[in-house]
């Protein structure tokens, strides 16, 4: 079974539910993590939910000198191995879309991992601007 | 001339022998490092000059030969007149004219220059009769002091490279390994690992490249047997390595030589060059399929560089620091390739075994420790020097019969074997047979064969502190138990010496020692607490005397002793002039007085008093 994560900006109302869902899904030691997704306004009442595109030839993967970023072949997401990451922030600087970010609360670099195969943002998005669809 | 067959080698040997044996009488001057330091080069040149001038019928300039070390360096410069074997000690340039006139021309022996037997106080004319030599059996040192290390022709003359010829032309590599295994040879570098087994494992390890390394790091202070072998008989080491290369299938070898041995490097390099010139090293050795080269690698200058994994990193150009390993270096060693690492003495023994057979070697020594072992005698012993004896000989024989016992009429107290991380054995162990296993069982070890003899004026706690200090400064600092543990153990030892330790401290030391032993990464740390543990095992009462009674039975620990002047004082004023704190007063020819409150307990007065009038309590 193959799934695909899709973003449809024209449906996004900027409600920021995805942000909350993401932060709470990535809670550690009772502290919510930094959200990996941001609905960003590009005009009056017009939003784009910006999140990692899980690029094919991903800059973040290339930039990590410690092999801390690897693609999960099942979900298709590029996941960050916390045990290997040393917070050098090469990936943060290298991602052309700014989608590897620094979680200041946990002093850690984070990025979208598609929640291991059940993206919370898509589950909670009230308008289906975000979807995780089975394609095969 | 390239020697590309056994026949050529034999022919060459005949020529070499003719030259070597040509002079009927020979003047042999030791130009080993010890004698050199005492001016033997001048002695040698003077002989050459005078012999040329005097035109003695049976002594020509060719009769004046130089050799490497004879192992009796404390008596150097040594001169031996052959064929009589007349043995002169402490020969100075000024003595040469007398020797030429009296001995060479007049066939007279000069008593003054003879060796005085340590036991009987009699003069001994012939060196083979000196107990120091008579009791020895030399295999590894067989050519030291008989040939000129800078002449490959000397080595060939005494049978050099015959073992290599035998191995290459009459034995398969497997047969060589079997022979070494059968001989029971165990590594002379410390741990006593069976050499044949090591070679067999390496030979079997699948890889294109195998390395052969010789460990000439000799880091133990006081040990100098490897230096002697490399500097006085370098070809034996090369020959042993080439035989090993043939056995395990190696094309590249390294000799790792301690930083402080520049002369040995020169001698070895000359030997390598000469061997290559003659086709005994390099491509197609002796015209066979075997190609093997040897390079010299200079040591990293630290004791721990002698440890196998550190040594291999150092040879590879990395920091000489031990590496934690679960795969042994025979399988994954230098550049991660199978590597045989053996000690200098181990390699030097190999040609003798191949030539004379495993059974001959196995017949010497004990069942589990075959052959002979070289020891460096040092400390409070009359005959300091290098001795090679059969394994299983007792400590008593080595120390008293060969070494001549303790000087100055003092009593033997302990002997430290195995270098800084070895252990101290007390008088009660004097009849212990010296071999790998019994030394280990007694809480010490063979190590590289250092033996430091101590007399009754030795404090065993201080000895432990001293050796621990050495190890603290030599620890590479990589792992915690060794880096921090040895340091703290040394500090606690010092506390005992200062009379400030409690019995709880002693218990803490014992716990700490155990942690260091089992917890350390490499052999240095694992054997590091030995100086403490072995002295505690045999001299616990001395520790307790420091702790409970605040006394140092050896009369050494400064804070626990007092100096006083007895009635034996003649009033010579010697002590007054040396005392740095002016604690001694008195008039000439009247008994002097020492003020205990001022005295700094430095021992200067004790050292200068000729009348034993200074008392330590």
């Amino acid at each position, binding site marked *: 079974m193959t799934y695909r994560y899709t973003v449809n*900006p*024209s449906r996004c109302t900027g409600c920021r539910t995805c942000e909350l869902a993401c932060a709470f899904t990535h809670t550690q030691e009772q502290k919510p993590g930094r959200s990996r997704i*941001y609905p*960003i*306004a*590009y*005009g009056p009442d017009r*939003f*784009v939910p*910006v999140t990692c595109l899980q690029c094919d030839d991903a*800059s973040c993967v*290339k*930039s990590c*000198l*410690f*092999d801390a970023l690897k693609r999960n072949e099942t979900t298709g997401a590029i996941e960050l*191995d916390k*045990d*290997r990451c*040393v*917070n*050098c*922030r090469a990936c*943060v*600087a*290298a*991602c*052309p*879309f*700014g*989608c*590897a970010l620094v979680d200041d609360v946990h002093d850690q670099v984070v990025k979208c991992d598609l929640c291991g195969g059940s993206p919370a943002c898509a589950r909670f998005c009230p308008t289906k601007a975000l979807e995780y669809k089975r394609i095969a | 001339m390239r020697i590309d067959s056994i026949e050529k080698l034999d022919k060459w040997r005949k020529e070499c022998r003719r030259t070597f044996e040509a002079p009927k009488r020979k003047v042999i001057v030791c130009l080993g490092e010890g004698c050199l330091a005492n001016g033997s080069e001048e002695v040698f040149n003077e002989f050459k000059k005078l012999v040329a001038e005097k035109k003695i019928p049976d002594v020509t300039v060719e009769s004046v030969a130089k050799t490497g070390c004879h192992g009796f360096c404390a008596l150097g410069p040594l001169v031996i007149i052959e064929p009589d074997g007349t043995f002169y000690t402490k020969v100075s340039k000024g003595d040469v004219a007398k020797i030429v006139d009296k001995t060479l021309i007049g066939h007279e022996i000069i008593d003054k220059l003879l060796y005085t037997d340590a036991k009987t106080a009699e003069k001994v004319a012939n060196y083979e009769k000196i107990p120091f030599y008579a009791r020895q059996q030399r295999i590894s040192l067989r050519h030291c002091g008989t040939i000129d290390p800078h002449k490959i022709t000397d080595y060939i003359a005494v049978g050099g490279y015959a073992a290599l010829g035998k191995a290459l032309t009459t034995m398969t590599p497997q047969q060589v390994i079997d022979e070494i295994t059968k001989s029971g040879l165990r590594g002379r570098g410390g741990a006593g690992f069976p050499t044949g087994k090591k070679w067999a494992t390496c030979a079997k390890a699948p890889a294109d490249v195998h390395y052969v390394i010789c460990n000439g790091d000799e880091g133990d202070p006081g040990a100098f047997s490897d230096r002697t072998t490399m500097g006085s008989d370098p070809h034996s080491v090369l020959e042993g390595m080439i035989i090993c290369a043939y056995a395990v299938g190696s094309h590249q070898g390294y000799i790792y030589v301690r930083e402080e041995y520049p002369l040995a490097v020169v001698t070895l390099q000359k030997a390598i060059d000469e061997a290559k010139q003659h086709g005994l090293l390099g491509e197609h050795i002796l015209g066979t399929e075997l190609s093997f080269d040897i390079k010299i690698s200079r040591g990293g200058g*630290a004791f721990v560089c002698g440890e196998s994994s550190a040594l291999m990193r150092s040879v590879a150009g990395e*920091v000489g*620091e031990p590496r*934690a390993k*679960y795969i042994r270096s025979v399988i994954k060693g230098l550049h991660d390739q199978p590597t045989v690492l053996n000690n200098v003495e181990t390699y030097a023994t190999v040609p003798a075994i191949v030539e004379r057979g495993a059974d001959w070697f196995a017949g010497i020594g004990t069942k589990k420790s075959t052959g002979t072992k070289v020891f460096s005698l040092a400390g409070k012993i009359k005959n300091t020097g290098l001795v090679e004896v059969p394994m299983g000989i007792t400590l008593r024989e080595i120390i008293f019969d060969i070494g001549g016992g303790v000087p100055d009429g003092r009593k033997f107290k302990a002997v430290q074997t195995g270098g800084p991380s070895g252990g101290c054995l007390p008088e009660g162990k004097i009849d212990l047979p010296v071999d790998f296993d019994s030394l280990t069982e007694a809480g010490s070890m063979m190590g590289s064969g250092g033996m430091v003899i101590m007399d009754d004026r030795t404090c065993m706690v201080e000895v432990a502190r001293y050796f621990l200090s050495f190890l*603290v*400064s*030599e*620890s*590479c*600092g*990589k*792992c*915690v*138990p060794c880096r*921090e*543990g040895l*340091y*703290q153990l040394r500090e606690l030892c010092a506390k005992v010496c200062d009379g400030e330790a409690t019995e709880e401290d002693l218990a*803490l030391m014992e*716990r*700490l020692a*155990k*942690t260091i032993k*089992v*917890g*350390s*990464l490499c052999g240095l740390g694992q054997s590091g607490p030995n100086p403490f543990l072995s002295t505690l095992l045999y001299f616990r009462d001395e520790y307790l005397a420091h702790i409970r009674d605040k006394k140092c039975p050896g009369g050494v620990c400064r804070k626990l002793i007092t100096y006083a002047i007895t009635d034996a004082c003649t009033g010579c004023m010697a002590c007054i002039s040396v005392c740095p704190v002016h604690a001694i007063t008195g008039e000439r020819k009247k008994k002097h007085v020492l003020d205990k409150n001022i005295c700094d307990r430095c021992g200067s007065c004790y050292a200068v008093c000729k009348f034993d009038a200074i008392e330590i309590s």
Partner: protein
Amino acid sequence: MVQMTINGKVVKAPDGEMLLTVIRRQGIDVPALCDHAAVEPCGSCRMCLVEITREDWNGWKKYVTSCLYPSENGLIVSTHTPELQEIRRNIMDLYLARCPGSELVQKMAEEYGLTRTSYKTIPEGDNCIMCYACTRICEVLGRNAISAVHRGHAKVISGPFDDPPPDCIGCLSCANICPTDVIEWHDQDGTRAIWGRTFDLISCRQCGKGIITRDFAEYLKEKRQIPADYFEICDDCKRVELARKMGGLVDLAKEVAS
């Protein structure tokens, strides 16, 4: 796969996987101070020591560092014998003498009931526990800028010859990996100082925020072929830019559709 016994329980593990990894997967907590997933194990802290034996060893056993010992069939591993706990306690006691100020050391020592060291506190001691994490990570990075210099008790982490390391690129990997936070650094006025050197920080072309050092960016560009202009804008501004670009496309699509 091999089969071993860990604390009496039969466990399967991939052949050659280090024991520490296997043990931890079992939920057993073996202490370790120099272990890190991104670097090769080095065996310097000795806390991860475990006891191993085998059926055919006839009662003979030995201690090995589990971070450095590969799994093999038939191993019988014990992780918390009284002897091991005693060794670990003694090691923490030694650490406490050397790094009395380190919270990490204090915390771990406390687990062994130690609040102060039984030994002499080392006057020149600091909080570096000599775990080599920093030098190893710099090695993985391919810079090898820092290493342990001097010997034995005087050993410290430093640049070559104790000078500022010329090969450092100011990436902070060492400072970040250091378990006791002893590697000092600070960012100020568009520069970063570490190991006695000062580096230029690239500041975001749009908002001015510091990103990474120019040397680090150069290194990534050369080693991993990442276009230089990727590094010129910070992540925040890049997200806004993406929103703007995507939004433009969405609007365009709408226009076309209507």
